[in-house]
């Protein structure tokens, strides 16, 4: 799906209108923009700033403050791997090393073919089932390197099927 800049601006204006009378709406606007496009398109910053009567610096400051917001499109599949203490206690660092080697990317990167993004996360609240990951928003617990391989293969197959 390709969206032209004009279409995109139209969509962003529609989102902004939706939050017009809400107090302190910037985070909600950004969440909605990211849900629509997968990331916060750089050209949307000035449009959002103008509508909310903020400076571009303020909007940029908020976008970059929060780990959740992306400034570039993510891969087709997003693997979030927990790196916090509970998961570390049962091998999360080894699992992280395995994921990096398997995908050939570091954290905060996407594979060159655009299929996978690898993101660190600091606690998914699934600590009694560590090590924990989230793949495309679905949680998986007690993840071994073998299970991770199987999950990635499965996701890749599904992606291939969808073209």
């Amino acid at each position: 799906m390709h969206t032209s800049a004009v279409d995109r601006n139209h969509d962003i204006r529609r989102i902004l209108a939706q939050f017009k009378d809400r107090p302190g709406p910037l985070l909600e606007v950004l969440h909605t923009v990211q849900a629509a496009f997968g990331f916060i398109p750089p050209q949307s910053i000035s449009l959002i700033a103008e509508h909310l009567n903020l400076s571009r610096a303020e909007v940029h400051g908020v976008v970059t403050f929060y780990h959740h917001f992306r400034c570039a499109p993510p891969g087709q599949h997003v693997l979030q791997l927990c790196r916090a203490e509970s998961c570390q206690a049962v091998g999360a660092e080894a699992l992280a090393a395995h994921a990096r080697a398997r995908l050939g990317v570091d954290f905060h990167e996407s594979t060159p073919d655009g299929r996978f993004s690898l993101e660190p996360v600091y606690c998914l609240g699934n600590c009694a089932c560590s090590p924990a990951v989230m793949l495309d928003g679905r949680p998986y617990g007690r993840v071994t390197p073998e299970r991770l391989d199987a999950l990635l293969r499965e996701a890749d197959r599904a992606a291939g099927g969808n073209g």
Partner: protein
Amino acid sequence: MTTIYVPGDSGALSLGADAVCRALSREAAERRLEVKVVRNGSRGAYWLEPMLEVSSERGRLAYGPVSVADVPGLFDARWLEGGAHRLLLGPTDELPWFANQQRLTFERVGVIDPRSVADYVAHGGYQGLRRALSMDPAAVVDRIVRSGLRGRGGAAFPTGIKWKTVLEQPPGQKYVTCNADEGDSGTFSDRMLIEGDPLSLIEGMTIAAIAVGATHGYIYLRAEYPHAWRTLTQAIAAAYTADYLGGDVMGSGRRFELEIRVGAGAYICGEETSMLESLEGRRGEVRVRPPLPAVKGLFGRPTIVNNVITLATVPLIVREGAEFYAGFGMGRSRGTLPLQLAGNIKRGGLIERAFGLSLREILYDYGGGSGSGRPIRAVQIGGPLGAYVPAAQFDTPVDYEALAAIGAMLGHGGIVAFDDTVDMARMARYAMEFCAIESCGKCTPCRIGSTRGVEIIDHIIAGHDPQGNLERLEALCELMVQGSLCGLGGMAPFPVQSAMKHFREDFSARAQH
């Protein structure tokens, strides 16, 4: 018709509960058996998840952990009639893990359908609000004060005192906000409660609003909890439909509007003033206190900021009375605490008990020791800012004061176990690294100190002037504790200092190289 309970809790989902649910619906249909499937929350025994329950004359019978491959065999064993099977654990309430617990806040979690107002009301729900609506607001606040309830988010500030401050502010717009930005590793009680019994949180917030004269509430929920968001959204909608929220709460003429605001992956937003900044749509930078949020909080108005567990405990206290709740616990730690047991542990999960259980009882009687079978060497209590406690101190009772006395803190009640393969210098490094990643950047001791901390520990690990660097690290920790604006920079040194104190060999051993 037999009811089968299949947890929809995200921990259970992470172990395949959805696939098991699909398999059993398919199998029941093929066998022409009529079953009712309820997606409940988790009971909190995660080593048994997915743990399914079947309604029977003997109460609910638990089977677990169930995999897709087990499903046909369960039907073959006539599990709908309580048939024997190797996965049959017995009546849920009689399992030792549950029988020894004192579930007050979690009384309905894993029991009811979290989206059903009718189910909630049938299990004691909304009796607290009904009572509160018939009371003088000051009497409601007084009941919370006398219960001894303290903030379960970690700071343990007396909840009733906070409410009293908001109540005493001049009339006008006031807010009730719920901090559901549960970012501490090893904690998941907020998530479990929201996924298992969200209406208790909604009722608690409504009571708070009635008590202090607020008409609007926000739940600040972390973005890492999409399943909790879904359940909470449905529960709020159901509460509106049944007039437990909105312009005429329970026919009282009182108004309370409640909405969810989703965080965006910033640990610091669990700090209350940072959360307020974020709710207002800004960078989650901490505010200087005073003024307290109770005086000048959200949009500059008097605001209650409480954790999920704190608010979800309120209906029970109003319903049963302050004395009932204060009857649990020890010393100044009254009531119960939902402890969360995680990390390298055989039986991880949620244990709600009165304060006062020893760490050893939690780790060995409930937890069954480490998951690896090796000795437990250290536990970290209270999240990434909590101290590491060595095995020699495992007889310490778990309450706010007893842990403070050994230089540790209870925080939000998470306990993460590590076996003897842990490298405590690495864990100390991680504490500083985490602080560097999550620092809001407003104050220098936290923003710069944490990065310097990582570098110094790297030098120690590499064996560069270990003695000098250990001294530098101690001085840096002291500076961060004394000079930081909030608890992130002010407490991130706690795990580092405790690791240096109790596990010195992990730092000094490197000195010999």
